[in-house]
C-alpha cells in the first residue's frame, strides 16, 4: 500500500470528501456543542453569555426543587432502546440461523431486505392502521368474538413498531457472521463431551459475536434516538429524548436547550461507538455496514 505524504495524489482523491465531512458533519456537531452553552436569544436565535443552565435544566437542577423530568425522558429512551434490542435479539438470533440453514437462502435474504428498505414512515404508519380503534386488529378480534383493545396511541404500539422497524437491522449483520460459522468446532465440542448448551456457548456464540454486537449497535442507537415512532404512535407530547430535540428545534424554539439535549444523545452514542471501535478495530467498524 501507498506512499506517505504523496500530497499531489491525495488531494484530488480524499480531499473533497474529507472537506465535506468536516464542513457538514464535524462543524455542525461542534456547533451543537457550543450552542448548548448559550441561551435563547431574540427571534428564537441563540445568544451569549456562556452558561451551564441548559445542562442544569436537563439534570433538573435549575428550579427550586430537583425535577428529574428530562432525566426520566432520557431513561425512558434508554429503556425503549434496551428492551427493543433484547426482543429483537430474541427474534432475530434464531432467524439468522433459519436463513443460514435453509435451502432458499437468497430468497429469505431478499425477504428480510425488502422490509428493511421499505420506507420507514410506511412501516410505522402501518401499525396505526393495525392498532387504531377501528383498525385491522380490532376487526379481527370482533370477528372471533373478543372485545376491542385500545392500543392506539399507547406505549405498547411504540414498542411493537420499534421492534418491527429495527428487526432487519439486527438480522442482516448477524446473518453475515452466522453464514461463516465453522460447524466442525461444534462437533469437536460434542466429541469432547460438551452438552448442547455448552456446545452453543463455547463453539457457536463466540463465532457470531461480531455480527451480534454490530447488529445490537444498529438497533439500539436509532431506537434510543427515535422521535417519529413515538410521535405517531405514542400518547402525550414529551415522551422520548428525540421528541424533546424535535420540539425544542420546532415549536418550542429553544435551540440552545435543544442543542444540549442533542449533545447528550450524541455523547451517549459516540461513546458507544468509540468503545466499540476500540474493541473491534477498523475491521469491526467495516462490519457495521
Amino acid at each position: 500500500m501507498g506512499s506517505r505524504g504523496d500530497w499531489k495524489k491525495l488531494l484530488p482523491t480524499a480531499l473533497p470528501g474529507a472537506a465535506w465531512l468536516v464542513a457538514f458533519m464535524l462543524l455542525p456537531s461542534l456547533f451543537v456543542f457550543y450552542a448548548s452553552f448559550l441561551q435563547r436569544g431574540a427571534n428564537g436565535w441563540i445568544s451569549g453569555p456562556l452558561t451551564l443552565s441548559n445542562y442544569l435544566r436537563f439534570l433538573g437542577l435549575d428550579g427550586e426543587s430537583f425535577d428529574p423530568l428530562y432525566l426520566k425522558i432520557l431513561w425512558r429512551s434508554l429503556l425503549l432502546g434496551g428492551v427493543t434490542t433484547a426482543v429483537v435479539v430474541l427474534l432475530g438470533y434464531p432467524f439468522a440461523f433459519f436463513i443460514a440453514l435453509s435451502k432458499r437462502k437468497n430468497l429469505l435474504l431478499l425477504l428480510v431486505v425488502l422490509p428493511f428498505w421499505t420506507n420507514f414512515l410506511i412501516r410505522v404508519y402501518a401499525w396505526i392502521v393495525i392498532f387504531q380503534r377501528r383498525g385491522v386488529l380490532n376487526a379481527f378480534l370482533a370477528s372471533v368474538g373478543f372485545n376491542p383493545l385500545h392500543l392506539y396511541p399507547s406505549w405498547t404500539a411504540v414498542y411493537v413498531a420499534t421492534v418491527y422497524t429495527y428487526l432487519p437491522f439486527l438480522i442482516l449483520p448477524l446473518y453475515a457472521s452466522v453464514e461463516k460459522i465453522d460447524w466442525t468446532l461444534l462437533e469437536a465440542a460434542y466429541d469432547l463431551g460438551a452438552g448442547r448448551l455448552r456446545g452453543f456457548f463455547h463453539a457457536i456464540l463466540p463465532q457470531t459475536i461480531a455480527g451480534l454486537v454490530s447488529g445490537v449497535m444498529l438497533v439500539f442507537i436509532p431506537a434510543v434516538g427515535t422521535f417519529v415512532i413515538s410521535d405517531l404512535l405514542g400518547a402525550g407530547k414529551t415522551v422520548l429524548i428525540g421528541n424533546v430535540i424535535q420540539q425544542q428545534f420546532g415549536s418550542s424554539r429553544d435551540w440552545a436547550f435543544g442543542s444540549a439535549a442533542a449533545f447528550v444523545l450524541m455523547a451517549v452514542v459516540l461513546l458507544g461507538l468509540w468503545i466499540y471501535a476500540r474493541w473491534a478495530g477498523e475491521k469491526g467498524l467495516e462490519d457495521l455496514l
Partner: protein
Amino acid sequence: MSGRRLLTAQGLLVLAFLYLPILVIIALSFNSSRYGVNWQGFTLKWYKQLLSHSQVHFYLVNSLIVAGVSTTVATVMGTLLALGLSRYRFFGRGGLLFLLYVPIVIPDVAMGAALLLFFAWVQRYLAAFHMSLITVILAHITFQVAYVTLIIKSRLAGLDPSLHEAAYDLGAAGWKRFWLVTLPLIWPGVAAAALLAFTLSLDDFVITFFTAGPGSTTLPIYIFSSVKKGVTPEIHALSTLMILVTTLILIVVQRVSTRR
C-alpha cells in the same frame, strides 16, 4: 418437536410479523371502503385520486431532484475518498475514518438538528442561503457520502493488488490507471453504492424534515403530514407504489452486485 422444526416455526412467525403490516397496507389500497378495514370490493379509485393530485406530482419531482443531485455528487466524492483512504496513509486518516461512521451511527434526529442549526447560522451571514431544496441536498450528500465511501472502500480492499502492479508495469499510472483498471474492477460496487444512496435519499424523512424549507416538501414529508391528520386510502396507494419502486430497485441492486 425437534430443534430444526422449532427453528423453522419461529422463522415463519418472524416472516409473518415482517410482512403482515406491509400486506395490510397493500390490501387496503385496493379496498373500496374509505374508512373501514372490512373488505368492500376491489377498486383502483384511490390510485386514480392520488395520481390526479397535482401536489403529489410536485412532491415526487422534489424527491427525485434531491435524490438525483445528491446521489451524483455523493457517488463521485465517495468513490474518490474511498480511493484515497485505501491507497494512502496520511495524517488524520484515523480521525477521518471515525468521522465517516458518524453520519451512519448518529441518531438522525441529532444530525438533523445539527444541520438545521448550522444552516441557520450560515444564513445569518449569507442572506441568499436559505432553507430550500439546496439545504436538503447538502444534508443528504453528507450521509450518502459516508455509505458510498465505506461500501467502495471494502470493494477496493478485496481487489487483487497484483492487478494494480501489472497496470503499473504496463505503463498505466495515475488517473489513466484509475479509468482503465481500477474503475472497471470496482464498477459493480460503485453502481450498487449509488443505488443505495439513491434509495436512502428517497426514503429519508427525519433529516429532510429538519433541513427543508417552505416549498421543498418531499414525498416522505407529505406522508408524515398526511398521517398526522389521519390515515387515508390515498396514502395506502402512495405507500404501495413506493414499496413497488423499492422492490424494483432492490432487484436491480441484487443483479448488479452479484454479477461477476
